[in-house]
């Protein structure tokens, strides 16, 4: 199925805008990106068939396109599922290297780009301060920080307490040692069943040979 170029152009524009904003709010990133020019990464999704190009411009800007005629510096190829695995992995760089995604071409600038992305330190307070002034902007940023901190702590505490409740109080799920013991017992039972089965086969075979000798 052929994709509508306008839809792809819309998605590219949206991603490009988000990246541009992130780069703008991360001091020093643009000048580091400039050094990667003229890096072009071709992302070739084989299923569904889709080609995207990520280019680093002369001014350090990132351009995303669905059509390019210049040869890419590096080609990354895989299915949509392979790319999703990389995107959702706790260590995307390791997932990219060890997964099913194929990489060819000059990978050095790709690693440099990955380092830059890893070092991205977005100063999200700046746009708030620009919008409502330094005094109220800073106060609002502090409030947001406090809310984020508290909600993070609450989330971690809730997660721990919920798992405790499921295991200890609600007994909705067995604890890990109990599960391990159960699985060991199942494995043991499987082994014993296998032994009995082979023993039965041996007895049947012997009985058959004895019956043949009497006849």
């Amino acid at each position: 199925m052929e994709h509508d170029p306008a839809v792809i152009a819309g998605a590219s524009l949206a991603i490009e805008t988000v990246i541009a904003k992130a780069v703008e709010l991360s001091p020093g990133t643009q000048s580091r990106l400039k050094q990667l020019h003229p890096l072009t990464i071709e992302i070739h999704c084989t299923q569904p068939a889709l080609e995207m190009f990520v280019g680093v411009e002369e001014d350090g800007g990132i351009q995303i396109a669905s059509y390019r005629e210049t040869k890419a510096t590096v080609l990354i190829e895989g299915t949509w599922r392979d790319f999703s695995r990389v995107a959702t992995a706790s260590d995307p760089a390791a997932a990219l290297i060890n997964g099913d995604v194929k990489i060819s071409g000059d990978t050095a600038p790709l690693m440099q780009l990955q380092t830059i992305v890893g070092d991205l330190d977005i100063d999200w307070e700046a746009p708030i301060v620009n919008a409502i002034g330094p005094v109220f902007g800073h106060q609002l940023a502090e409030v947001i920080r406090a809310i984020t901190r508290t909600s993070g702590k609450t989330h971690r505490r809730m997660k721990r307490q919920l798992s405790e409740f499921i295991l200890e109080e609600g007994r909705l799920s067995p604890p890990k040692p109990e599960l391990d013991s159960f699985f060991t017992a199942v494995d043991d039972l499987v082994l014993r069943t296998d032994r009995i089965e082979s023993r039965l086969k041996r007895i049947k075979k012997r009985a058959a040979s004895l019956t043949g000798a009497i006849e």
Partner: protein
Amino acid sequence: MSSQDNLTDDTTDFGYERVKTAEKAGRVREVFDSVAAQYDLMNDLMSGGLHRLWKRFTIELSAVRSGQTVLDIAGGTGDLAAKFSKLVGADGKVILADINAAMLSVGRDRLIDKGALNNIDVVQADAQFLPFEDNSIDCITIAFGLRNVTDKAKALRSMYRVLKPGGRVLVLEFSKPTSPLLSKVYDAYSFSALPAMGKLITDDADSYRYLAESIRKHPDQESLLEMVEDAGFVDCRYHNMTGGIVAVHRGIKG
């Protein structure tokens, strides 16, 4: 004479109307004089901002590189020219051409405001008689302009003449929706909502009715492809966008 243009010896289409061939350019000029000031705003409203995505893909297809010369015909308010200006860089050149002085004036003002006039020349020119040397341009674009040209075949031949061998032409234009259902919705929108919006914003429903009519009279994807090939271009192809409401045709000068 070109059959695709419905151009006879003395009359041609002006929307659904037949007018004298010599009169068409003047009538088109009146339309664009009327809408020039609000042209970009109306484009955003009429297309829901989609015209920016259509143009974005056209720029991708141009594959323009630093140092090249780009001619943007019917460039009007200069949105494509501004993007090309960045792509060709200080060593390249962009020529913003339009037959309509009012549109060019708006375009030049916008480009001055953006600080993008360093490598852009602004030229008032008719697409049928391009005032440039043979084999002098790397890429020509004409976005939503070809349907207003009196003799489209002549304009395409003129583009072929000024392009360098290996150069490309890109024609971005309204076309024929590929789905009958979309076609009905699009017709209803074009002939009801479009003139009403034109009336509300520019107090000029007639100009927007003409735009809707001229789109219907414009050759469909295959006919335009044939016209591009007839002009001498090779490796011609087109890409439908938004269900065929718009198509971008590409041809290479062999």
